[in-house]
């Protein structure tokens, strides 16, 4: 003959079972929270690395642009000097100073030779996409500067993407922490329910189930949305 069950024994077993189930759910949500934290940590590290690379690229592009502009500036100066010397030679010739005119013209040729050699150092003259298509035209300096900007913008875009990943992972980790807290409350309610008389136990179980459903449901929705 079976023993008559003690009143409320079933609800006590239910509270115990729910407490155990809550502990398992807490373990799973904690694992998800850890995963999100690791992702945030990795993104934070990548962000630091990319920022360093950006600073490095800024410095490199700055040095490169300074060099290019220095070279092209010097070349323009020498070309202009040669032109002025040629004009001076013409003027001297017109005034009958043939010897001085020849010397000035020779000096102009020297400056022009210098300018030609200088141009070989500049990618603005070497690179077909920037080089002038006629002798009297200037190179595409604006395009060169814009291309430098494009490189920088691309790097900044990468940093923004990684930063977004970091913010997103951090928020998800924080939200998981909130759900773990809600589940811990459910665990507390189920634990307390076992020590109370059956009517009060049912109330605690009801609130515990609500907390368990909120914590589990929220964590599940977050996992599905983020994954």
């Amino acid at each position, binding site marked *: 003959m079976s023993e008559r069950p003690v009143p409320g024994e079933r609800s006590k*077993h239910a509270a*115990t*079972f729910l407490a*155990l*189930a809550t*502990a*398992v759910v807490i*373990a*799973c949500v*904690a*694992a998800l929270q*850890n*995963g999100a934290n*690791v992702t945030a*940590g*990795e993104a934070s*590290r990548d962000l*630091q*690395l990319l920022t*360093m*690379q950006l*600073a*490095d690229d800024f*410095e*490199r592009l700055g*040095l*490169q642009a*300074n*060099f290019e502009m*220095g*070279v092209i500036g*010097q070349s323009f100066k*020498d070309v202009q000097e040669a032109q002025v010397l040629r004009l001076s030679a013409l003027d001297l010739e017109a005034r009958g100073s043939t010897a001085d005119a*020849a*010397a000035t013209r*020779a*000096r102009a*040729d*020297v*400056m*022009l*030779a*210098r300018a*030609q*050699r*200088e141009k*070989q*150092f500049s990618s603005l003259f*070497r690179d077909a996409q920037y080089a002038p298509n006629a002798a009297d035209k200037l190179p595409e300096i604006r395009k060169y500067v814009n291309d430098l900007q494009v490189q920088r913008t691309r790097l900044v875009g990468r940093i923004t993407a990684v930063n977004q990943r970091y913010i997103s992972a951090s928020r998800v980790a924080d939200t998981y922490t909130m759900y773990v807290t809600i589940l811990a409350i459910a665990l507390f309610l189920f634990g307390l329910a076992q020590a109370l008389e059956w009517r009060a136990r049912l109330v605690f179980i009801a609130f515990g189930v609500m907390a368990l459903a909120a914590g589990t449901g929220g964590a599940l929705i977050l996992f599905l949305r983020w994954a």
Partner: protein
Amino acid sequence: MSTDTPRSSRSDLIVAAAIAIISIATALLAWRASVLGSSAGEESRTGLMDAIKLQAYTSEARRLLFQEAEFAFEHAAYVAELDAMTASADAGLRAQSVTLRQYVLPQMAQLSPLTNAKYARTDGTLDYEKRLTELKAEQPQIARLQPSESFARANNLFIQQRITIWSAALLAFSLFCLAVAEITSNRRRALGVIAASIFAGVGLSIALLASLIARVIGGGL
């Protein structure tokens, strides 16, 4: 009735012992996950420090390169100027070029190693990459700094940490099954113990396998 009680208490004892063992295993896995996380963090920091040092050395080498490039540019322009003077019809310029070539040009050449003929290219430009490689080689610290290796190890450890945490979660499932077995009896208890054994076996195997694989491919703890 007399035989039921000892059998029941024996299975109670077995389940209780299993709960204790799995609890300890879970705690150990949690500890290991924490250690893996710390080690991954350390590797990441080492990688970042190495990257900072590497960038500093590279930046210095590059700064030197551009400094040398400016001197080399001045030198090349001056050589062109002197060549034009030498070829000039003007006797004064020719005479000047001889003196300048003799006294000024060698001093200008000393300002930059890039004036050396070994860096000259056929198109009139200079081999900056070759010089940059040499400048980097002059700093032996650069070769020792391998941030990407540290980052790879860190990533490996982070993966191990994730796997270990999920293994611990499987052990939590195992504990749940054992606890259910503890409060039930007969068939349900047997089912609980079987399920707990499966969860514990899978969890521990995954953790062990992840650790072994990490050791084989390197970067594991």
